[in-house]
């Protein structure tokens, strides 16, 4: 047994389904976990939209159950809690578990030809740590002196005892810390696995782009999550032990003491890379999926890898663009503006590669393909509107307005969400042995992308019109009341978007147990994960495969008539 890395197949229920160390089970745990939190965060978004369109009206149907104290009305404190937790949940408990936890755990070992992650126990610990973080976060909603109200960014001094003594904020910080710890464990595991467990012949130049994206994300996780971890520790100490890291003495009493802006630096040193933590796997996934379904090699594979690596490096030095209005010195401001603009170069290379990947292909518009093209669309919108935010001359007006809300939802949230949906539908047949309904999938796609783009493009207009974000009620002053019609329209679209997700829930549940049985390689692609049996045996690969061909050799001229793909384990016929 000594050198045998593969753990034996568990026999009891707990070892098999609860505290499992098998990457396939952990991937499914992350999947369910992420979907449940996505649902909770989504309901919160709907409540936020309800309040914005109908300020002060009781929430219909579920209102009296959720907010019995106010008879179903969302009060300002609850509203602040809602958008704070919506952000925290969607980023840390919804998208991260789905696109990194689930896709990473599923795709990495299978795509590189390994039998499991390199540290299976650490993997199990990673899931249960994020689970604990989720529980703490959820519990924080119900503590007596009030839940968190300081926004997902948790800026002091609003997040310190200056604003309130509620333990909700402290619990929120603990939750973020735990979730961060989980991400670090995952990141270390992913990186070491990719470095050490690639099957023979699986060179760095043959690694599927999904794995590249996840690998780079892991590096960012390992390097930058500790920064927010420490910031959270300092915040907790300020709240619990009365230290003054972020609490300054008043100017009128001579100043001195802590510095609230220090927190903003620490938060965004992490926060900007966090954007790429979510977007890099998305880029990797669509880099692969576009090639798989256009039946063409990924255009400029090396260029894509290079661009993703460049973004990973650049992400560490641009964070100041979140702080242009805080009183950052002119020199720092200009440097951050310039550095941020440079990111558009690798981004441009990625767009160039994706668009050329589908150009002159033989495109199968399956559901994963639709989501991938959707990512190009929403990321294009989000990325381009980033120019307004990176340019100080426009950001000075647009900062902290709905323009920013529209921008980051399209860039980070929608892109990562679309890629996650694409990946779920794509990996579903291997995961559960059944196909998801393409009809419902397409309906879900169109009913998601159309309202989603409408909502967030509407927010660009609202922001340009000067509507600040995080306002409980825009009707209490004339200046904003004249913009209320846009709030109403956005809310209608948001409700449509929200209800469309029920199609996905139905499709997911129905297909999980009653879907059409899937063949071993329904998408006809060559990566190692699809060269296995369905259902997957406990050890994934009976013999570790030897890789001889790249992952994207679709429509190679040497392939025989009627076949446009080749397995990575097969030698290309010499033309």
């Amino acid at each position, binding site marked *: 047994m000594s050198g045998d890395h593969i753990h034996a197949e568990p026999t009891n229920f707990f070892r098999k389904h609860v505290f499992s160390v098998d990457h396939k089970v952990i991937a499914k745990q992350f999947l369910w976990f992420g979907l449940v939190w996505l649902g909770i965060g989504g309901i919160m978004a709907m409540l936020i939209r309800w309040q914005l369109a109908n300020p002060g009206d009781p929430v219909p149907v579920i209102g009296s159950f959720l907010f019995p104290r106010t008879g179903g009305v969302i009060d*300002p404190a609850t509203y*602040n809690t809602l958008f704070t937790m919506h952000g925290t949940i969607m980023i840390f408990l919804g998208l991260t578990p789905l696109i990194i936890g689930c896709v990473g755990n599923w795709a990495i070992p299978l795509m590189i030809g390994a039998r499991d992650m390199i540290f299976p126990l650490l993997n199990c610990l990673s899931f249960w740590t994020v689970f604990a973080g989720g529980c703490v976060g959820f519990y924080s909603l119900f503590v007596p002196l009030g839940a968190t109200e*300081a926004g997902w960014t948790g*800026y002091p*001094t609003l997040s310190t005892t200056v*604003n309130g003594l509620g333990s909700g904020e402290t619990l929120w910080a603990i939750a973020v810390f735990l979730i961060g710890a989980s991400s670090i464990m995952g990141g270390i595991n992913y990186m070491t696995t990719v470095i050490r467990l690639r099957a023979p012949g699986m060179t760095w130049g043959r690694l599927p782009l999904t794995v590249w994206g996840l690998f780079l994300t892991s590096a960012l996780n390992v390097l930058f999550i500790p920064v927010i971890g420490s910031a959270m520790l300092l915040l907790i100490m300020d709240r619990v032990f009365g230290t003054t890291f972020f609490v*300054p*003495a008043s*100017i009128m009493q001579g*100043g001195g003491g*802590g*510095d609230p*802006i220090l927190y903003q630096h620490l938060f965004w040193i992490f926060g900007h890379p966090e954007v790429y933590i979510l977007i890099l796997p998305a880029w990797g996934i669509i880099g692969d999926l576009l090639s798989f379904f256009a039946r063409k090699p*990924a255009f400029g594979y090396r260029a894509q890898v290079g661009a993703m690596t460049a973004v990973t490096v650049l992400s560490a030095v641009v964070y100041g663009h979140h702080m242009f*209005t805080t*009183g950052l010195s*002119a020199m720092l401001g200009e440097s951050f503006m*310039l550095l941020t*603009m440079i990111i*558009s170069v690798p981004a441009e290379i990625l767009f160039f*590669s994706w*668009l*050329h990947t589908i*150009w002159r*292909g*033989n*495109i199968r518009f399956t559901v994963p393909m639709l989501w991938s*093209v959707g990512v190009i669309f929403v990321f*294009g919108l989000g990325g381009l*509107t980033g*120019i*307004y935010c990176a340019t100080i*001359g*426009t950001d*000075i*007006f647009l900062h*902290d307005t709905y323009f920013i809300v529209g921008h980051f939802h399209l860039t980070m949230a929608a892109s990562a969400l679309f890629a996650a949906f694409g990946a779920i539908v794509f990996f579903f047949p291997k995961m559960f042995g059944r196909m998801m309904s393409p*009809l419902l999938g397409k309906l879900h796609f*169109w*009913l998601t992308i*159309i309202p989603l783009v*409408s909502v967030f493009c509407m927010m660009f*207009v609202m922001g*340009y019109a000067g509507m*600040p974000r*995080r306002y*409980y*009620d825009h009707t209490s002053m004339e*200046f904003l009341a004249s913009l209320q*019609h*846009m709030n*109403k*329209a956005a809310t209608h*679209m948001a409700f*449509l978007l929200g209800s469309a997700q029920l199609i996905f829930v139905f499709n997911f549940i129905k297909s999980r147990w009653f879907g059409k049985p899937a063949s071993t390689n329904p998408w006809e692609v060559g990566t190692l994960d699809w060269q296995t049996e369905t259902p997957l045996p406990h050890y994934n690969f009976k013999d570790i495969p030897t890789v001889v061909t790249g992952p*994207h050799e*679709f429509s*190679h*001229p040497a392939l025989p008539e009627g076949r*446009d793909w080749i397995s990575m384990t097969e030698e290309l016929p010499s033309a």
Partner: protein
Amino acid sequence: MKLHTKMMQRLTSLWTSGITRASLGLAILCGMAPEALAGGKRWGPVPFASDFGYRFEDLFWLITWLCVGSFSIVVIMILIPSVRDRYKPGRKAHFDHGASLKDKRLATVISAATFLVLDAWVLVIAMTDLREAWWNIPESEEAGVYEVEVLAQQWAWNFRHKGADGKFGTADDILQMNELTVPNGRSVSFQGTSKDVIHSLFIPAMRFKKDFNPGDINSVWFKPITAGNYTILCAELCGYAHYQMFGELHVLESDTFDNWAADASELGVAAYDSEDTEARWAWDWKE
């Protein structure tokens, strides 16, 4: 069973027809129509009333047209293959790794062009704007500069004018809450801080905002060019009543303003209470 399959097939083919999808999209967009078509609504910002306001508008629309241009290219590059290169059994896709020297050159040229057109152009204008306008905070000695100290708190704006003696922190200072009166055509220079949490002074009509942080003093300025009343907002989340932390800016023509200031300063002396330490906040103007 057979009927079921047939119905599904029907549905699928109905769905795949472009007309269905287009009309569905249209129907969804029509959901927004009632709000969109009703009159008397605002669809953009109020006209700018500060001398650097045009710089924001110009830059905003320059970026907008650049973005519309680039995004159109992306959409066209998605639409053409989506229609032309749909799957046909038996057809083989164009085999191309995009790794040839020609492709590399093309990618380099395009990304360089993007950087020069999209970024460098915007960057140069933005730098000029910043240095000539937003960051060009007028010095105290400059003629005609009007200075105001701001103390933000949960949830109100406190403004302090020098009053008749030209010094901050004296009995004749003019104190205003949630209201600010300034002379038209003169540079108004602010220094501000906060009593409790971070707030952000946002005057949309003047096209600027600045955070006021506890423990530190930040400076910001603008020069009104049109007399009138404008909204002051708080743009940084500051707690329970963040959304109600608004005030009004009155820009008065200079003679009206001088009368107002003289009266207000006298009222300030009358209302001055040396016991009230809370109301005595002020600091020496920071150069």
